[in-house]
Protein backbone atom coordinates (compact mmCIF):
# COMPACT_ATOMS: atom_id res chain seq x y z
CA UNK A 1 0.00 0.00 0.00
CA UNK A 2 2.79 2.39 0.91
CA UNK A 3 4.74 1.44 -2.23
CA UNK A 4 1.76 2.27 -4.36
CA UNK A 5 1.39 5.62 -2.63
CA UNK A 6 4.93 6.57 -3.46
CA UNK A 7 4.54 6.12 -7.20
CA UNK A 8 5.13 9.22 -9.34
CA UNK A 9 1.51 9.50 -10.28
CA UNK A 10 0.44 9.47 -6.68
CA UNK A 11 3.07 12.06 -5.81
CA UNK A 12 1.85 14.31 -8.57
CA UNK A 13 -1.72 13.81 -7.46
CA UNK A 14 -0.84 14.70 -3.91
CA UNK A 15 1.04 17.85 -4.96
CA UNK A 16 -1.58 18.97 -7.46
CA UNK A 17 -3.73 20.82 -4.92
CA UNK A 18 -0.69 22.73 -3.73
CA UNK A 19 0.19 23.86 -7.24
CA UNK A 20 -3.44 24.72 -7.86
CA UNK A 21 -3.52 26.86 -4.77
CA UNK A 22 -0.30 28.57 -5.82
CA UNK A 23 -1.71 29.28 -9.27
CA UNK A 24 -4.92 30.56 -7.74
CA UNK A 25 -3.00 32.97 -5.54
CA UNK A 26 -1.05 34.15 -8.58
CA UNK A 27 -4.22 34.70 -10.59
CA UNK A 28 -5.84 36.57 -7.72
CA UNK A 29 -2.79 38.75 -7.45
CA UNK A 30 -2.88 39.51 -11.16
CA UNK A 31 -6.59 40.30 -11.08
CA UNK A 32 -6.08 42.54 -8.09
CA UNK A 33 -3.41 44.45 -9.99
CA UNK A 34 -5.68 44.89 -12.97
CA UNK A 35 -8.49 46.21 -10.79
CA UNK A 36 -6.22 48.66 -9.07
CA UNK A 37 -4.49 49.99 -12.19
CA UNK A 38 -7.51 51.75 -13.77
CA UNK A 39 -8.03 53.65 -10.56
CA UNK A 40 -4.47 54.84 -10.62
CA UNK A 41 -4.75 55.71 -14.25
CA UNK A 42 -7.69 58.11 -13.69
CA UNK A 43 -5.93 60.96 -11.92
CA UNK A 44 -3.67 61.94 -14.79
CA UNK A 45 -6.68 62.30 -17.09
CA UNK A 46 -8.83 64.44 -14.83
CA UNK A 47 -6.31 66.97 -13.51
CA UNK A 48 -3.75 67.40 -16.25
CA UNK A 49 -2.31 70.55 -14.79
CA UNK A 50 -1.63 69.06 -11.40
CA UNK A 51 -0.29 65.78 -12.76
CA UNK A 52 3.39 66.65 -12.37
CA UNK A 53 2.78 67.76 -8.82
CA UNK A 54 0.90 64.61 -7.89
CA UNK A 55 3.37 62.20 -9.47
CA UNK A 56 6.48 63.43 -7.73
CA UNK A 57 5.61 63.18 -4.03
CA UNK A 58 3.79 59.84 -3.70
CA UNK A 59 5.96 56.74 -3.31
CA UNK A 60 5.42 53.82 -5.68
CA UNK A 61 4.04 51.16 -3.32
CA UNK A 62 1.21 53.45 -2.17
CA UNK A 63 0.56 54.96 -5.59
CA UNK A 64 -2.92 53.50 -5.66
CA UNK A 65 -3.82 55.15 -2.40
CA UNK A 66 -2.17 58.48 -2.89
CA UNK A 67 -3.38 58.85 -6.43
CA UNK A 68 -6.99 58.56 -5.29
CA UNK A 69 -6.66 61.56 -3.07
CA UNK A 70 -5.82 64.08 -5.81
CA UNK A 71 -8.62 62.82 -8.04
CA UNK A 72 -11.56 63.92 -5.88
CA UNK A 73 -9.62 66.91 -4.69
CA UNK A 74 -10.48 69.25 -7.57
CA UNK A 75 -14.16 68.43 -7.48
CA UNK A 76 -15.11 67.24 -4.04
CA UNK A 77 -12.58 68.55 -1.62
CA UNK A 78 -13.07 72.11 -2.71
CA UNK A 79 -16.40 72.31 -1.00
CA UNK A 80 -15.45 70.61 2.26
CA UNK A 81 -12.08 72.25 2.56
CA UNK A 82 -13.21 75.73 1.63
CA UNK A 83 -15.80 76.13 4.43
CA UNK A 84 -13.39 75.45 7.28
CA UNK A 85 -11.16 78.39 6.38
CA UNK A 86 -14.06 80.72 5.75
CA UNK A 87 -15.67 80.43 9.18
CA UNK A 88 -12.31 81.27 10.62
CA UNK A 89 -12.04 84.19 8.26
CA UNK A 90 -15.59 85.37 8.75
CA UNK A 91 -15.49 86.61 12.31
CA UNK A 92 -12.98 89.42 11.69
CA UNK A 93 -14.89 90.97 8.77
CA UNK A 94 -18.36 90.61 10.17
CA UNK A 95 -19.85 93.16 7.82
CA UNK A 96 -19.14 91.41 4.54
CA UNK A 97 -18.24 87.75 4.76
CA UNK A 98 -19.67 86.58 1.37
CA UNK A 99 -17.31 88.60 -0.82
CA UNK A 100 -14.35 87.29 1.13
CA UNK A 101 -15.36 83.67 0.61
CA UNK A 102 -16.06 84.22 -3.04
CA UNK A 103 -12.61 85.64 -3.55
CA UNK A 104 -10.79 82.96 -1.62
CA UNK A 105 -12.44 79.99 -3.34
CA UNK A 106 -10.85 80.45 -6.75
CA UNK A 107 -7.43 80.55 -5.13
CA UNK A 108 -8.00 77.42 -3.07
CA UNK A 109 -8.34 74.64 -5.71
CA UNK A 110 -4.72 74.51 -6.79
CA UNK A 111 -3.55 74.53 -3.20
CA UNK A 112 -6.11 72.38 -1.40
CA UNK A 113 -4.83 69.01 -2.65
CA UNK A 114 -1.79 69.54 -0.50
CA UNK A 115 -2.75 68.77 3.03
CA UNK A 116 -0.03 70.75 4.81
CA UNK A 117 -0.71 73.81 2.70
CA UNK A 118 -4.22 74.25 4.09
CA UNK A 119 -3.03 75.91 7.24
CA UNK A 120 -1.36 78.89 5.53
CA UNK A 121 -4.37 79.46 3.28
CA UNK A 122 -6.80 80.57 5.98
CA UNK A 123 -4.27 83.03 7.25
CA UNK A 124 -3.67 84.38 3.78
CA UNK A 125 -7.36 84.51 2.92
CA UNK A 126 -8.14 86.12 6.23
CA UNK A 127 -5.49 88.70 5.55
CA UNK A 128 -6.88 89.32 2.09
CA UNK A 129 -10.41 89.51 3.45
CA UNK A 130 -9.39 91.82 6.23
CA UNK A 131 -7.48 94.06 3.88
CA UNK A 132 -10.18 94.04 1.22
CA UNK A 133 -13.19 94.48 3.50
CA UNK A 134 -12.63 98.17 4.14
CA UNK A 135 -11.94 98.87 0.48
CA UNK A 136 -14.87 96.84 -0.83
CA UNK A 137 -17.65 99.32 0.05
CA UNK A 138 -15.65 102.07 -1.57
CA UNK A 139 -15.30 100.01 -4.72
CA UNK A 140 -18.99 99.05 -4.69
CA UNK A 141 -20.23 102.60 -5.19
CA UNK A 142 -18.41 103.30 -8.47
CA UNK A 143 -19.19 99.76 -9.58
CA UNK A 144 -22.75 100.82 -10.33
CA UNK A 145 -23.05 101.06 -14.07
CA UNK A 146 -26.33 102.88 -14.51
CA UNK A 147 -26.15 102.86 -18.29
CA UNK A 148 -25.32 99.19 -18.36
CA UNK A 149 -28.13 98.41 -15.95
CA UNK A 150 -30.55 100.38 -18.06
CA UNK A 151 -29.40 98.57 -21.17
CA UNK A 152 -29.80 95.22 -19.48
CA UNK A 153 -33.33 96.16 -18.48
CA UNK A 154 -34.06 97.14 -22.06
CA UNK A 155 -32.61 93.93 -23.46
CA UNK A 156 -34.02 91.45 -21.00
CA UNK A 157 -36.66 89.04 -22.19
CA UNK A 158 -38.15 88.57 -18.75
CA UNK A 159 -40.43 91.59 -19.16
CA UNK A 160 -42.83 92.31 -21.98
CA UNK A 161 -43.03 95.55 -23.91
CA UNK A 162 -46.11 96.90 -22.15
CA UNK A 163 -44.54 96.14 -18.80
CA UNK A 164 -41.26 97.78 -19.74
CA UNK A 165 -43.06 100.86 -20.94
CA UNK A 166 -45.11 101.02 -17.75
CA UNK A 167 -41.99 100.71 -15.64
CA UNK A 168 -40.25 103.37 -17.68
CA UNK A 169 -43.17 105.72 -17.14
CA UNK A 170 -43.17 105.09 -13.42
CA UNK A 171 -39.42 105.66 -13.23
CA UNK A 172 -39.87 108.92 -15.12
CA UNK A 173 -42.63 109.95 -12.71
CA UNK A 174 -40.40 109.19 -9.75
CA UNK A 175 -37.57 111.21 -11.26
CA UNK A 176 -39.96 114.13 -11.68
CA UNK A 177 -40.82 113.85 -8.00
CA UNK A 178 -37.15 113.82 -7.03
CA UNK A 179 -36.33 116.79 -9.24
CA UNK A 180 -39.25 118.69 -7.78
CA UNK A 181 -38.09 117.81 -4.28
CA UNK A 182 -34.58 119.05 -5.00
CA UNK A 183 -36.00 122.34 -6.29
CA UNK A 184 -38.26 122.68 -3.29
CA UNK A 185 -41.39 122.32 -5.38
CA UNK A 186 -42.65 119.01 -4.00
CA UNK A 187 -44.70 118.21 -0.96
CA UNK A 188 -43.18 114.78 -0.69
CA UNK A 189 -40.71 114.27 2.09
CA UNK A 190 -37.60 112.21 1.65
CA UNK A 191 -39.22 109.34 3.50
CA UNK A 192 -42.19 109.36 1.16
CA UNK A 193 -39.89 109.42 -1.83
CA UNK A 194 -37.94 106.56 -0.35
CA UNK A 195 -41.13 104.59 0.05
CA UNK A 196 -42.11 105.20 -3.56
CA UNK A 197 -38.65 104.27 -4.67
CA UNK A 198 -38.74 101.04 -2.68
CA UNK A 199 -42.14 100.09 -4.07
CA UNK A 200 -40.98 100.70 -7.63
CA UNK A 201 -37.80 98.75 -7.03
CA UNK A 202 -39.78 95.85 -5.63
CA UNK A 203 -41.99 95.90 -8.70
CA UNK A 204 -38.97 95.69 -10.96
CA UNK A 205 -37.36 92.93 -8.93
CA UNK A 206 -40.63 90.99 -8.76
CA UNK A 207 -41.02 91.15 -12.50
CA UNK A 208 -37.43 90.10 -13.09
CA UNK A 209 -36.87 87.46 -10.47
CA UNK A 210 -38.42 84.60 -12.42
CA UNK A 211 -37.22 85.36 -15.92
CA UNK A 212 -33.90 87.04 -15.23
CA UNK A 213 -32.78 86.35 -11.67
CA UNK A 214 -29.28 87.64 -12.30
CA UNK A 215 -30.55 91.03 -13.33
CA UNK A 216 -33.01 91.01 -10.44
CA UNK A 217 -30.20 90.45 -7.97
CA UNK A 218 -28.13 93.13 -9.66
CA UNK A 219 -30.95 95.63 -9.37
CA UNK A 220 -31.54 94.65 -5.78
CA UNK A 221 -27.89 94.90 -4.86
CA UNK A 222 -27.59 98.36 -6.39
CA UNK A 223 -30.54 99.71 -4.45
CA UNK A 224 -28.53 101.96 -2.16
CA UNK A 225 -26.27 103.15 -4.95
CA UNK A 226 -29.24 104.23 -7.04
CA UNK A 227 -30.77 105.90 -4.01
CA UNK A 228 -27.53 107.79 -3.52
CA UNK A 229 -27.81 109.13 -7.04
CA UNK A 230 -31.46 110.07 -6.62
CA UNK A 231 -30.84 112.00 -3.43
CA UNK A 232 -27.87 113.89 -4.85
CA UNK A 233 -29.12 116.75 -7.07
CA UNK A 234 -25.83 117.06 -8.94
CA UNK A 235 -25.55 113.39 -9.72
CA UNK A 236 -29.23 113.20 -10.60
CA UNK A 237 -28.87 116.09 -13.02
CA UNK A 238 -25.93 114.33 -14.63
CA UNK A 239 -28.08 111.27 -15.23
Amino acid at each position, binding site marked *: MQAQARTPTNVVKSRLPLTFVALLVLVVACVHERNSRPVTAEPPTSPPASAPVATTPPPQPEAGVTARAPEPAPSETNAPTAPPPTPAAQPPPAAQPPPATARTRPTNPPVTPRAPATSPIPAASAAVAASSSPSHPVAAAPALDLKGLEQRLRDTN*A*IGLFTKL*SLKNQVADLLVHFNASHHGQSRNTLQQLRQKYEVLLMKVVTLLQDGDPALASTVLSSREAIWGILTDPKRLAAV
Partner: protein
Amino acid sequence: MPVRPTVFFVLALLGPIGPAAAQSPSPGQDLKAAIALQGFPCDQVVDSKRNADSDYTATCKDGNRYHVYVDAAGRVVVKKL
Protein backbone atom coordinates in the same frame (compact mmCIF):
# COMPACT_ATOMS: atom_id res chain seq x y z
CA MET B 1 -16.79 55.60 -14.54
CA PRO B 2 -20.00 55.59 -16.68
CA VAL B 3 -21.51 58.22 -14.42
CA ARG B 4 -19.65 61.16 -15.96
CA PRO B 5 -20.66 60.54 -19.58
CA THR B 6 -24.22 59.99 -18.41
CA VAL B 7 -24.21 63.28 -16.52
CA PHE B 8 -22.78 65.14 -19.49
CA PHE B 9 -25.35 63.55 -21.75
CA VAL B 10 -28.20 64.56 -19.46
CA LEU B 11 -26.81 68.07 -19.14
CA ALA B 12 -26.50 68.29 -22.91
CA LEU B 13 -30.13 67.31 -23.21
CA LEU B 14 -31.18 69.81 -20.58
CA GLY B 15 -29.07 72.58 -22.05
CA PRO B 16 -31.63 73.95 -24.49
CA ILE B 17 -34.12 74.33 -21.65
CA GLY B 18 -32.25 77.37 -20.31
CA PRO B 19 -32.62 79.61 -23.35
CA ALA B 20 -36.16 78.37 -23.84
CA ALA B 21 -37.04 79.40 -20.31
CA ALA B 22 -35.59 82.87 -20.95
CA GLN B 23 -38.03 83.62 -23.76
CA SER B 24 -40.11 86.73 -23.56
CA PRO B 25 -43.43 86.42 -21.76
CA SER B 26 -46.63 85.83 -23.62
CA PRO B 27 -48.89 88.79 -24.50
CA GLY B 28 -51.26 87.67 -21.78
CA GLN B 29 -48.53 87.77 -19.16
CA ASP B 30 -47.33 91.11 -20.44
CA LEU B 31 -50.83 92.57 -20.30
CA LYS B 32 -51.39 91.14 -16.87
CA ALA B 33 -48.19 92.71 -15.57
CA ALA B 34 -49.03 96.04 -17.19
CA ILE B 35 -52.51 96.01 -15.67
CA ALA B 36 -51.15 95.10 -12.26
CA LEU B 37 -48.52 97.85 -12.48
CA GLN B 38 -51.32 100.37 -12.95
CA GLY B 39 -52.93 99.11 -9.77
CA PHE B 40 -55.82 97.18 -11.27
CA PRO B 41 -56.71 93.66 -10.17
CA CYS B 42 -56.08 90.88 -12.64
CA ASP B 43 -54.96 87.44 -11.55
CA GLN B 44 -54.74 86.03 -15.07
CA VAL B 45 -55.53 87.22 -18.57
CA VAL B 46 -57.72 84.59 -20.16
CA ASP B 47 -58.43 86.45 -23.38
CA SER B 48 -56.89 89.35 -25.23
CA LYS B 49 -57.97 91.04 -28.41
CA ARG B 50 -55.59 93.15 -30.45
CA ASN B 51 -57.32 96.32 -31.61
CA ALA B 52 -54.30 98.00 -33.15
CA ASP B 53 -50.60 98.42 -32.59
CA SER B 54 -50.00 98.59 -28.84
CA ASP B 55 -53.75 98.54 -28.26
CA TYR B 56 -55.38 95.55 -26.59
CA THR B 57 -58.56 94.60 -24.84
CA ALA B 58 -57.80 92.13 -22.09
CA THR B 59 -60.22 89.95 -20.20
CA CYS B 60 -59.09 88.70 -16.84
CA LYS B 61 -60.08 85.47 -15.17
CA ASP B 62 -62.11 87.30 -12.55
CA GLY B 63 -64.26 88.86 -15.29
CA ASN B 64 -62.67 92.29 -15.37
CA ARG B 65 -62.02 93.72 -18.84
CA TYR B 66 -59.42 96.37 -19.54
CA HIS B 67 -58.43 98.52 -22.44
CA VAL B 68 -54.65 98.62 -22.50
CA TYR B 69 -52.95 100.93 -24.94
CA VAL B 70 -50.07 103.33 -25.40
CA ASP B 71 -51.09 106.93 -25.79
CA ALA B 72 -49.46 109.57 -27.93
CA ALA B 73 -47.10 110.54 -25.11
CA GLY B 74 -45.77 107.01 -24.93
CA ARG B 75 -47.48 106.15 -21.68
CA VAL B 76 -49.22 102.88 -21.00
CA VAL B 77 -52.85 103.55 -20.19
CA VAL B 78 -55.13 100.99 -18.60
CA LYS B 79 -58.86 101.72 -18.56
CA LYS B 80 -61.41 99.50 -16.94
CA LEU B 81 -64.26 98.61 -19.29
